Every structure is written in C-alpha cells, then in structure tokens.
C-alpha cells in the first residue's frame, strides 16, 4: 500500500487563537481514518484546511502532500482539478449544501459535466447508477425530486452520490451523520463502510461520536483543544487507550459509562398520568371548515402513560414522532384536543386555573442549553426568578437558596454573575436544571437534555440527574432519541412512532425482547464501541 495523503505539522490560526496545533498523520490508499473530538477541538477545521475551505483570515502552516503535491501550497487552478474530482467532501447538514431549486439528478449531473467527458444520455445513466449505489430506491423517480421532498437521510445519500460522481480517491466526511436520526445514521454509516470496501475509497471521517467512527474506520485520531492527543488503530485505541483524555472519552460513551444504579421501580399508584391524549396542531381554518375536514396535523394520537413516584420513564422515538409534543402537553404548553392529565390521582389542568400550583410540582428542562436561558439574565438572576416571582421563599433567603441550588447542580459560585453566553453548554444545562429545582418539583421532565452536549458533558449531566433523583426522590420523564442513554437511565421505556405509542414496558424487557420490528430497528441502531462493527 502506498501513502495517499501525508500531513505534517498542520497548524491553523485565526488571529490569536490556534484552531489546529501541529497535527501530523498519514493516510494509506484505501484506508479510512477517523478524527474524533468534542466541539471546538479543531477536527472540522483540520478537514476544511485540507480542502482549503477556510476563510482568508485563517493562517495555515505545515504541509499536506497528496500524491506528492502539497495541497496547501498549490495554485488554485491546480487545486480545483483535485477538489471534487479526486477528493470529495460531504458535510453535516445536507439541507444547506444542496441547492433547493435544483433537482437531485441535476445536482449529481453537475459534477459529472464539470469533471468528466460524459455527455447527454451517458450522464443520465451514470446519475441513476450513482443514486442506486447510495441505495436511493427508485432512482429514476427521485432524480426528478427537489431537495425539500427528500428526508434527511435521503438528502445525505444524494450528497454522497454527488461526491462519488467522479470516482474520487479520497472522501472527506465532516460529521455526516450527526444531524440524522439513529436508524438513518446507522444506514448511512453502513453505506459508507460498504462503499469503502466496494469502491476502494479512502476516507477521512470526522465525528464527535466514537461509536460512529468505530463503525467505519480502521484508524483513529483523537483531538482535544486543537492538539492531537492520541492516534492508532481503532481497536487498539478503544481497548487500550494511552491518554487520559481518550480514556475519559471512552468512559463517557453510554456503553461504557459507570453510573450510579437506577432507582428501584416503585409499585405505588401513578404520580403523573396521561390518558388517551390526542394533540393536534393547526386545523380549524376557514378552508378546513368549508371542506368539512378536521385539518391540521395530529402530532400525538391516543397516548397513555403512567409514571410512578420515584421512577424514571424514557420516551424514545425519531424526530417528528411526537415525543416532545407529548411532554409539552404535560406542562401545559400545548392543550390536548382530547384526553386528560392526572397528577397524584386527581385530574389536573395544566393549561387552566390550577396551572401555577401544578407547575410547582411538574417542571420541564429543555434541549438547547443556550436557548433555554434568557441571554440578558445572569445565572443567579435566572435561578432566583422563580423564587422571587412565586415567593417560594422569603426574600431574605433568596440569595442563600440560589447558592444552595448552584451547589447541588455543581456550578461554581463564581459563575453567579455570568451571562449564558459566557458559559459552556454543560454549565448552561446545569443552570436550567437548578432553575427547575428551585420549585422543588416532584416530577422533572427532561426533553432531550443531553442531545446537544458533547459525550463527556452528556455523561456528567446524566450522572447529575441520577444523583438528584436519588437525593430528592424525583420522578422523571426522560425524552431522547438515543436509546443508549435511555437504557442507562430509565426503569421503563415508551417507544413512539408517528404520534403513536408503539411499545412500552420495563427497560430490560423492551431491550431484550422487543415486540415491534421498529423497536428492534432502534435498538440495532445504537452505536456500540467496538471496532469494525459494520
């Protein structure tokens, strides 16, 4: 095997900040290399530097020899002969890299027309072949479709088809599966692994997800704070990590995480219940009235759930399955069209009169740590707000109470006067949790709280939630698309699909013996930490 790409001392600086600090690696022909790191570690910048896609403000030094020629030094016309033709790149959000006004087939054909001698019918045939290679069913039909008509996974496949059009030697994939649902993620990863074998493609795969990288790659680079921490074959790095940070990264993966044990499932009467909930958005417009139809869109259909005191129930499903809508109906953000919510055995009305009293018992934590806090309120004021507004404690004690809450969720007191913009994602999420705890609620609903966080932070937040549950005897509803996380946190699990609950039961039973094929699919899609899983 010969070396295809030889990177030496690659550094990228933006003004005073160093984004990539002296990275060196080799890529053999036909090999695949994964670059893993948390957000801000410089992994994407490395990838983009190789393609010279960084803004002019970036100062790049070092060398990247591709087949003997330095990608970082060569003149632009020569580089353009290589970009797209011999090195292709796919991005995280296919939606923003496909032209919305161009049919899928034409977008793939564009590259062919630019970089090959093919013309006319030849191009049309090649486009259909490529769409078939990336497993888009009925290529002739989808080639005529526009990007908005495709699902996220299909778009990513179309983008891969475009990248493969010129039969490149090297594919750079920058977080290609991060924006996708677990099952779609798995199918795209399988596709990449297969393409690698069949087309003898070399690949650099950038991801924050060690499990995804392990599925596709042979070798691994671990980056942190713009430096290379560790490199080696995937199996070696995972089984015998050399560096402390790598060890931490691996230990944070839901597969390996050592968490305190989940509280025993209790047998008492349900604390919070939803019975026959049906939630619809929109509809009842004039046009709907005239047409005599219901209109709108049914987000949740006949959902029943019951959560016993001290228990944690997980709700899992792909995006659009209605799991967040269901949670929001429990805190009165949406009014169910039919069905009732019961708290402590009595019907509650989260949107009506008893709302304020009810919400003291049931609190919701949101997904995006930065968005859930008002950007113009300091940490201390955000946590104090419910205390003051609802007079949850005498005004004199607010300050002590805030400090106490901050300590419980592990925020250093020196951060009290910071604004959310000055905190990390994990810290913001802790503040949001502290604010919810200010109510001293009995039920805590966590809506995808770990999804936007890096693995190590995700592990810390999961641990925090378990600790709080144990200390305070909280009842929790934990919503996630990540079954790996659900399995580690929940006593029982509810699987949702297209607005309906398709399966529910104790976590162990559902995972070991899923009744539904769909649940099985979700379970199979959990990224596991062992090399060459695909």
């Amino acid at each position, binding site marked *: 095997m010969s070396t295809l790409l030889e990177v030496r001392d690659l550094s990228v600086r933006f003004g005073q900040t160093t984004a990539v600090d002296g990275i060196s690696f080799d890529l053999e022909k036909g090999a695949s290399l994964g670059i893993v790191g948390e957000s801000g570690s410089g992994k994407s910048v490395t990838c983009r530097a190789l393609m010279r896609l960084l803004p002019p403000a970036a100062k790049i030094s070092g060398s990247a020899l591709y087949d003997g020629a330095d990608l970082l030094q060569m003149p632009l016309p020569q580089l353009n002969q290589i970009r797209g033709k011999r090195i292709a790149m796919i991005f995280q959000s296919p939606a923003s890299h496909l032209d919305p006004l161009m049919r899928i087939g034409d977008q793939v054909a564009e590259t062919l027309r630019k970089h090959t001698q093919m013309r006319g019918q030849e191009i049309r045939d090649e486009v259909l072949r490529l769409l078939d290679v990336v497993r888009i069913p009925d290529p002739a039909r989808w080639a005529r479709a526009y990007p908005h008509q495709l699902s996220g996974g299909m778009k990513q496949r179309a983008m891969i088809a475009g990248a493969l059009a010129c039969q490149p030697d090297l594919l750079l994939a920058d977080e290609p599966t991060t924006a996708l649902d677990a099952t779609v993620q798995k199918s795209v990863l399988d596709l990449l692994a297969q393409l690698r074998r069949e087309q003898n493609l070399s690949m650099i795969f950038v991801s924050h997800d060690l499990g995804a990288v392990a599925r596709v790659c042979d070798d691994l680079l671990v980056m942190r704070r713009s430096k290379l921490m560790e490199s080696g074959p995937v199996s070696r790095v995972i089984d015998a990590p050399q560096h402390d940070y790598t060890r931490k990264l691996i230990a944070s993966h839901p597969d390996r995480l050592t968490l305190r044990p989940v509280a025993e499932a209790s047998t008492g009467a349900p604390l919070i219940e939803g019975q026959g909930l049906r939630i619809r958005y929109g509809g009842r417009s004039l046009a709907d009235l005239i047409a005599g139809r219901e209109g709108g869109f049914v987000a949740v259909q006949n959902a029943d759930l019951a959560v016993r005191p001290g228990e944690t129930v997980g709700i899992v499903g792909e995006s659009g399955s209605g799991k967040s809508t269901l949670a929001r109906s429990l805190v009165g953000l949406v009014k169910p069209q039919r069905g009732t919510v019961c708290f402590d055995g009595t019907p509650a009305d989260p949107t009506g009169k008893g709302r304020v009293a009810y919400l003291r018992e049931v609190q919701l934590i949101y997904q995006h740590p930065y968005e859930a806090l008002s950007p113009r309120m300091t940490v201390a004021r955000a946590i104090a707000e*419910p205390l003051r507004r609802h007079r949850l404690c005498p005004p004199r004690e607010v300050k002590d109470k805030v400090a106490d809450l901050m300590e419980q969720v592990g925020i250093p007191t020196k951060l009290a006067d910071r604004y959310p913009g000055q905190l990390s994602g994990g810290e913001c999420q802790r503040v949001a949790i502290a604010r919810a705890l200010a109510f001293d609620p009995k039920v805590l609903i966590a809506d995808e709280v770990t999804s936007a966080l890096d693995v190590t932070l995700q592990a810390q937040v999961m641990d925090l939630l378990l600790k709080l549950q144990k200390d305070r005897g909280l009842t929790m509803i934990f919503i996630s698309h990540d079954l790996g996380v659900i399995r580690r946190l929940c006593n029982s699990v509810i699987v949702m699909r297209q607005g309906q609950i398709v399966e529910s039961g104790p976590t162990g039973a559902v995972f070991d013996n899923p009744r539904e094929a769909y649940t099985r699919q979700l379970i199979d899609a959990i990224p596991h930490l062992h090399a060459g899983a695909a």
Partner: protein
Amino acid sequence: MFVIGVALVLIWGLIAAAAPLLATHDPYAIDFAAILKAPGAEHWFGTDNVGRDTYSRVVYGARLALYIGLLGVVAPLVIGMTIGLVAGYFGGWVDTVAMRLVDITVPFPFFVLVLSIVAVLGPGIENYFIALALVGWVGYARLARAEALVLRQSEFVLAARTMGFSHGYILLRHVLPNSLSPIVVYLMTDVTLVILFGAALGFLGMGVSPPAAEWGVMIAEGQTYISTAWWISFFPGLAMVLIGVGFALIGDGLARMLRIER
C-alpha cells in the same frame, strides 16, 4: 465611526444646554443697522434680512431640534413596541387587526401622511407630534412583532411559561429586553428623520412658526436671499447635516455592536 457619532451628538447636546452662554447675540434681537451682513468678526455666521445673528440662532436652534427629535419619537416608540410585541407574542386576531392597521399605513409615503395630518390639525409642533404618533408607530410595531414572533417560540420563553409566569410578566421581563436591539438601531435613524421632517415642516410653514430660531424656518427665511446672502440658509442646513450624521453613525455603530453580541 460610532465614537464620532457619539461625539457629534454629545457636542450638540452641550450646545443646546449652554446656548445662552455660547450665543454672542440675542437670537431674536432685530438690528436694522446690521442687515444681511456677511460672516465676520462681529457676526460669525452673518446676519439675516432683519439683522438677527445667524450664529446665535443656529445655537438656539439646536435646542428645538433636539427637543423635536427626542420627544417626537417617544410616542411612536411606546405605541409601536406595545402593539408589535403584543401582536407578535399572542398572535391570533390581535395580530391580524394590528397588522391590517399597519398595512393601511404602509402604502402611503411617510412624509405625505404626516403632512396631511398636520394640514388637517393645523400647523404647530404639538400637531406634528400627534401626526408622528399616528403614523410613526408602524415601523416600531413591525420590528417588535418580528422579534416577538421568534422569541415566543424560543426555549427560554417556553421555560418561563412552564415556570407558571403570567404573559404580562413574560412580555415585560423576557420578550421586551431581548427584542430591543433592532429597535434601538431603528430609533436612532428615526430621531434623524423626525428632526429632518420637523425642519421640513418649519420650512413649509407648518411646523414651528416664525420668528422661532428653528433651522427649517431659518432656511425658509433665507430662501429669498440665497444668491446674495447664502449664509442665512447654509449654516442651519449644515447644522442639520451634522446632527443627522451623528445619530446615523450611532445607529450604525449600535447595529454592529449588537450583532456581534448575538
């Protein structure tokens, strides 16, 4: 640039505050011995057709200009923000009604509308303020509504609702502060606009009435002598440009600063 803008506006503020100290003559004193005098040591900016000192009148004019500019935007700002935030946050029929009102106002050129209202109500600065309140709120309402539409779906507003806070409180403490940035920028350009239109009304004889030391009025008075005594109209014009550029630069600077903060 922002600093230049702030400096310009500050200087005008000082001039307005210290007008009696800075003025060399009484701005209203008629002096038939010094009619249409060119700028010189005695009269720095010259004198007009009844011998009033142009420099002193420009200095006193700063008071009127700032008074009109700063007071004229208050009513549109308050009315516009209230309507816009409420419409955007609650949506539904409130929004429909408010936006149809906006639609009625938008097709007419702003100045034409203000002018016709003043024409109906009669000349005078109070009527100008009333006209501004009736028409000027539209710009603020549209901006505030756009911000509120986005904010009402943001997680921190949802979080405030799940914390059981009332809509009024959420609007005041969460939506309002976070919607301010584009509105403040617009406010700065609006101040300029209100000063200019105020002067334009003075020029047309429908705003502040003569013999007041108001820049628009002064320009109108100098109009007849523009070929022989250019200074009567030139200096108030220059003053208007300088104050306008000052507010505009502040607006630009704020826009840039607030964008980075986001």
